[in-house]
């Protein structure tokens, strides 16, 4: 098909995904958005959440591949989407125990933050990340 998007998911360790898909959902910092072929150029930070690739090469029509990502940003061009993320995992790779621990750690940070706004922001970030991980790990099991 002509109107397909090239998607690349890049982490510090490697290029995790490099394929063409029909659409991709990206967890922007201000909320999820979906990108189709021909989208206007856009640059955004991403928050903790899931990148969903629809109709990728590997799965064929109607398939969804999900990756739990956090901390990064995305560049959208009409025919190409590049996602830079510090962490990216498949839902089945997520260690729920570790994520749970992270959540508790975040809650602890939150409680200890006192009146420092930086610390609050940091704690919220940690918790959001952990929650996103747990969510996508849980969704994978159903």
């Amino acid at each position, binding site marked *: 098909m002509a109107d397909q998007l090239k998607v690349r998911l*890049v*982490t*510090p*360790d*490697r*290029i995790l995904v490099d394929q063409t898909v029909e659409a991709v959902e990206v967890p*922007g*910092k*201000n909320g999820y958005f979906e990108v189709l072929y021909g989208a*206007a*150029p*856009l*640059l*955004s*930070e991403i928050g903790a959440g899931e990148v969903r690739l629809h109709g990728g090469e590997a799965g064929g029509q109607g398939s969804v591949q999900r990756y739990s990502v956090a*901390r990064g*940003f995305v*560049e959208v*061009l009409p025919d190409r989407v*590049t996602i*830079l993320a*510090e*962490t990216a995992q498949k839902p089945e790779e997520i260690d729920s125990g570790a994520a749970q621990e992270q959540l508790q750690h975040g809650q602890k940070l939150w409680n200890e933050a*006192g009146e*420092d706004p930086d610390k609050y922001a940091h704690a919220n970030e940690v918790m959001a990340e952990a929650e996103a991980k747990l969510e996508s790990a849980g969704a994978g099991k159903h």
Partner: protein
Amino acid sequence: MANVLDLRRRIRSVRNTRQITKAMKMVSAAKLRRAQERAVSARPYASMLASVLESLKRRAEIYDPETGECRHPLLLTRPEKRILLVVVSGDKGFAGAFNTNIFKAAANFIAENGDKEIDIEAIGRKGRDLFRRRYPAAQFSEATEETQRPERTRASQVEVLAGPTGVLEKIHYDTIRDVSDEIIALYTHEEIDAAYLVYNEFKSVIQQRVVVERVLPILSLTVHEVERAEEPTLEERERAAEAALSAGVSLYPHEAEAAEKQLEDEAKNFGTAEVDYIYEQPPQEIFADVLPRYVTSQIYHATLESIAAEHAARMTAMDSATNNASDMIDSLTLTMNRVRQAAITKEIIEIVSGAAAI
């Protein structure tokens, strides 16, 4: 003269040593290959990060139009009075001059900046051990409600910070991020005026050097700011090349990889397309968020290269050791044969002269 039995025993012992060094060399070669791969696959991320920053720089108003002041704390330059020196060394020895070279570069840097206050943060066990012996540890008082940051009482010009432990055993981006977050916090709280990185740069087995690089303040985004570098001698290179050849490691791993090249070019163009992007967040905000990541990626990159360089150095050192052991076995075997020959000759003489006497 030593007797045959002693010599035979020694030969056996040297042979055992050679076995061990040979095995270590092969292990290092395998690890080197893996480390090289990691270093290469980490490149797209780093260059994409750099290029997106470069393009944002044009759009984000870094400098205040009215006062001309820099808006982001990591770009601010201050007169260098307090310096943080991050030394990336190895966790283990048996790597030839690898650790020594790094310490030499670090010591030179400290000597040159003798009038400034220097903090050392060591990544890698060897470096930590050495600097702990040489310099006192930094003393901090507990953070209080009012000050937020722990207070510091400085006792000496050069002090060692409690660096991270066990980073190199299993390198992970998250641990490096913690390190760089700490460095950035120090910088933004104006507890240091500059941060330098000493590490072993690794381009290929024969192309590596010890470099001192500035991480903070960030003055330029595309070029690494190498303060100075120490190249290996020609002889050392030849030794390394020989070792690599015998271990089956390619000398130029990144050549003739057109796909790789293309990817890198694309990475460089990341975020720089000549179109007007829609920015979800204000460019300044993205810029401010990306800058610390750039620092992290720089340190991560340095650590990966240092690991590869360490394995390469160990491989070379172990190859030399194996060759030396072989030489030693040869010369010992020669001596042993001579001694045996001498003993036989002596016995024959005795028998002959005994027979003649009858």
